[in-house]
């Protein structure tokens, strides 16, 4: 038993050490990529196309629906739609929390899993060795554009998500209260603070980095067997969700500290 425990700890520490080294290398290569834009630019464009543009419809629909549902459910409470607090609640719930987190979950499920599967399959089919044989590091060529693409897509998709979420809420509210949408928008902007926008952008960017780094790491961690790919994909999704929730908590705490 002691031997098993010792072996488990050694393996865990080895994996942790490998993961830290991999992430350091990935971020170093990312900075290098920003200096040499031409390398992997096509991969970056395709990544934004797949992660951002491809997820726009589902994100828009989800945000519109959830924004509308918040108002419909909130309308059950007395004076919910008439109070000035409505706009602050919408801004905090949709812009600061639901927008980035919902987008992150969609990206994890859609793009994160796809990145892990794709990279895992490339490892299994020895494409990595092909890249290395022609002097191209696969992490620089495949990992870095995905990291940048997912992070940028997360920020842009969150902006869409916020807009559609707020529009959905205000449209339903306008229908229920018979107040003009323009008046609702005016009141909404009056309740917007710079910290709301910064918090939303920061969260989405951090979530994007977490999702991309985790997915790329688990994709490259496939050692050779095709059966490893779905296992690594599932683990990648789970770890990404947990890390996003932890990061969300840290950012909320930091935002409250700054606001105080």
């Amino acid at each position, binding site marked *: 038993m002691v031997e098993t425990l010792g072996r488990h700890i050694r393996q865990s520490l080895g994996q942790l050490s490998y993961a830290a080294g991999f992430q350091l290398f990935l971020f170093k290569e990312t900075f290098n990529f920003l200096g040499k834009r031409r390398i992997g630019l096509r991969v970056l*464009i*395709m990544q*934004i*196309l797949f992660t*951002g*543009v491809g997820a*726009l419809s589902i994100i828009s629909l989800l945000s519109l629906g959830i924004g509308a549902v918040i108002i419909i459910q909130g309308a059950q409470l007395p004076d919910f739609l008439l109070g000035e607090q409505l706009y602050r609640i919408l801004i905090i719930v949709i812009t600061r929390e639901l927008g980035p987190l919902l987008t992150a979950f969609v990206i994890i499920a859609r793009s994160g899993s796809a990145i892990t599967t794709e990279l895992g399959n490339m490892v299994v089919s020895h494409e990595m060795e092909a890249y290395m044989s022609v002097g191209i590091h696969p992490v620089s060529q495949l990992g870095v554009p995905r990291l940048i693409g997912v992070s*940028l897509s997360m*920020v*842009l*998709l969150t*902006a*869409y998500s*916020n*807009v559609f979420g707020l529009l959905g809420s205000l449209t339903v509210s306008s229908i229920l209260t018979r107040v003009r949408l323009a008046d609702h*928008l*005016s009141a909404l*902007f*009056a309740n*917007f*603070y*710079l910290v709301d*926008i910064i918090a939303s*952008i920061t969260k989405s960017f951090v979530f994007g980095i977490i999702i991309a780094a985790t997915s790329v790491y688990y994709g490259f961690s496939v050692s050779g067997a095709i059966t490893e790919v779905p296992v690594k994909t599932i683990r990648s999704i789970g770890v990404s969700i947990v890390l996003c929730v932890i990061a969300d908590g840290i950012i909320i705490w930091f935002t409250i500290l700054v606001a105080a």
Partner: protein
Amino acid sequence: MKFKFRHANKIVGIFTLVAMLLLVIITAFAGVSKKWFTKKIYFTSLFTSAEGLKVGMGVNLRGFQVGRVKNISLNADNQVDLDFYIYVTYHDRILPDSVLVLPSGLLGAAAALEIYPGLVEGLPLPYGTYIPSTQTVEGKMLVKTRRVDRPTGGDAITDILAELPEILDNLDETIVSIGNLSSSLKTGIEGEGNDAFSSTVRNLEDFSAGLDLSIRDVNDITASLANLAVELEDPTGLVPTLLDPTGSLDTLLNDDNVLWDHILSIIVQLEGAAAGVNSLSTSLAGISPQLALTLDETIRSLTQAQKVMEGLQNNPILKRGISEETVPENPGADTREDEF
């Protein structure tokens, strides 16, 4: 090749630009709505407590938001320094004698500060000027003397709420005064203070002690009066006897001056006796030298006689020549004086 992949660059470009545009629009609208880009004129104020104050709360003028609170800090004198700004569009309304008010919210803290502009004609207050709050004496005086443009004519509850800070201030002052009075009374009653009240209380204690003595005297007098009343009630008592129309006093007072004449005659006799004594004393004074000589002669004679008697006593021939005088015993002596 699929359209999507053929025009990937354009699609991604549009996707990015639209998202960026949305972000810029939201930020710009929020900024315009919250007057981020409007020039602000900063002022300072002073409060006694930060209760109900918070950074970012609005500064209203007759219900319109004309500024915001920028910073709140506790200064070295334990007073609260408040920095706030007024949007430049409303700056011309911030005249001298303006006052900052923290309204009393109906349920908890107020959402915004109120500014009452001064009624003085002149230029608006410059950047960085101190504007007193109604929590300071200066601010209270400006409101009390009606030197500020204070909104009136609202509904009853609004008017009451507007008056509430002043009422609360007055109540505070009253409570503090009562507290001071109470402590003064306490120290005064204990006689420890140095003020007029304490000395009055101390004098009162002395007066009380004197009053005790006086009351005791009055009690004695009252007891005497009671005795007198009892005496008066007793028909055989001294006083009724004296005051009786047929009593001794009446007899003495209504005897046709017989008693008076008698007393007068006694006085005349006493006067005569006194004159006799006076003449006797004068005579005695006249014979006193002779009397002195006579007395000296008598003393000398007695001395000679004593010597003769001593000689006779010592003469053996005449020894036992004179029989001794016998003293008769007292027949009525007490038996107790006998020796046993």
